[in-house]
């Protein structure tokens, strides 16, 4: 009961400590920073122990998943990094992870991010409902082509081709502006939420 009333005030104290960084780096910030690193590290570690139990030890015992003993051993070998002369054994487990992750990451990437995007760009220039749609589609077509062109590295564009590359750069900038803007929205919401929290704890607003 008592602790529940203190926690919001601690929240306010931390808020001031962290935001004091905006003025300059100081001991209050360092206190919050180091507390947080300790807490986060401890938290991560407890979660790791938890999942080692639920996805490693317990399936081996209850579901007879004896194959999981192999990653357990390889995992313990990863810890060999602490001793330089046997550190090479840690690379086995790590490289299996790299292999799995890379395989997963690249197997569908060309379909999802190249073929689908190319197909989406196909348009029929012969039938368009109105002039605006016509303009929009041509606009997208030109910006896609010029952007891809901009990313060609091994051929230096010369003559008129230089302009295509430049248009590509402009198309990228047009794409980045809206992304920046939607981030403004999210960040302002988070800021407003924290200021509201601050005012609520101090009793200025309900």
């Amino acid at each position, binding site marked *: 009961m008592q602790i529940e009333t203190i926690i919001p005030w601690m929240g306010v104290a931390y808020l001031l400590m962290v935001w004091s960084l905006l003025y300059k780096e100081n001991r209050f910030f360092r206190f919050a920073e180091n507390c947080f690193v300790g807490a986060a590290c401890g938290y991560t570690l407890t979660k790791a122990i938890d999942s080692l139990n639920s996805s490693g030890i317990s399936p081996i015992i209850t579901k007879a998943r004896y194959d999981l003993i192999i990653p357990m051993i390889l995992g313990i070998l990863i810890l060999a990094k602490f001793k330089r002369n046997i550190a090479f054994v840690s690379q086995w487990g790590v490289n299996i992870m790299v292999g799995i992750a890379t395989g997963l990451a690249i197997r569908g990437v060309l379909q999802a991010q190249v073929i689908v995007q190319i197909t989406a760009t196909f348009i029929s220039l012969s039938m368009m409902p109105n002039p605006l749609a016509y303009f929009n589609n041509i606009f997208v077509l030109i910006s896609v082509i010029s952007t891809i062109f901009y990313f060609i590295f091994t051929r230096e564009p010369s003559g008129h081709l230089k302009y295509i590359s430049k248009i590509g750069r402009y198309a990228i900038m047009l794409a980045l502006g809206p992304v920046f803007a939607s981030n403004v929205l999210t960040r*302002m919401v988070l800021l*407003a939420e924290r200021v509201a929290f601050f005012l609520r704890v101090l009793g200025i*607003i309900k």
Partner: protein
Amino acid sequence: MEKKNRGILEALEYVDRRILYSLMIIVVAVPLIHPLGLPMPISSFTRTAYNAIEALKPGEYVIWASDVDAGAWAECGPQSIAFLNHLFRIPNIKIIIVSFIPAGTDLVLLALKEVDLHDKKYGIDYVILPYIAGGETAKAIFFSDVYKVVTLDVYGTHLEQMSIMKDFKNVNDISIYTGVVSPMTPLEEYIRQLVLPYKKPLIVGVISVNVPTLMPYIKSGQVTAYLGGAMGAAEYELLIGRPGSGLAQADSISTSHLMILLLVLMGNILYIIKRVRGGKK
């Protein structure tokens, strides 16, 4: 005179960022203390979401998914509260709350503290399932047969003992699948595992950064409607007539956006003046 002018311009251009920060706090705090009641249009998707939930009939099942982690709670929290307030207000519907992200269950319990439960009873009208691990695979199984992945509720009671679960075997029994989603991974999994095979309407709340990512699914009709960030929550609060934290913050979002635009404008005017003067030299 000229020299002094230049001094002011320089000072404005290289204004100490701490002054900007303090200005920002004021601009955000003032509307929170004294709500300005700035006008707020309601987007069509928020209205679609509201209408779909409003149209639920007694006896129908709804799944509410809390697929959200703590970092997104500032935006998804108000959305959850608004959504759940609406769901609990509709008479005699059954609500099943589930989470496929570890922090989701704790967060939805937090949200429920601020929700008016009306006369809904736990175990009869609504139930909270624990976090279900296993990503897409777990979702696929959950949708085809709930009991294969979850047998206990969040408090450790057996699901068979609850009257709400009597008529509920799999996702075919629900009318709408709704929830908050952030990060976006669960959403794509829902499209593949829920919308495509079962053709169930999906209504989600997402944080505003993820709205562009969501757009293709909205356009293809795979996602029926969405709430976008805290503004979506504020609009929904307005629709259900329960002003909450989303609406309270809407004004300060407006003012802070205006301030950023004014700053950008000022920065550019200063820049142009400086360029013109520099050009004369």
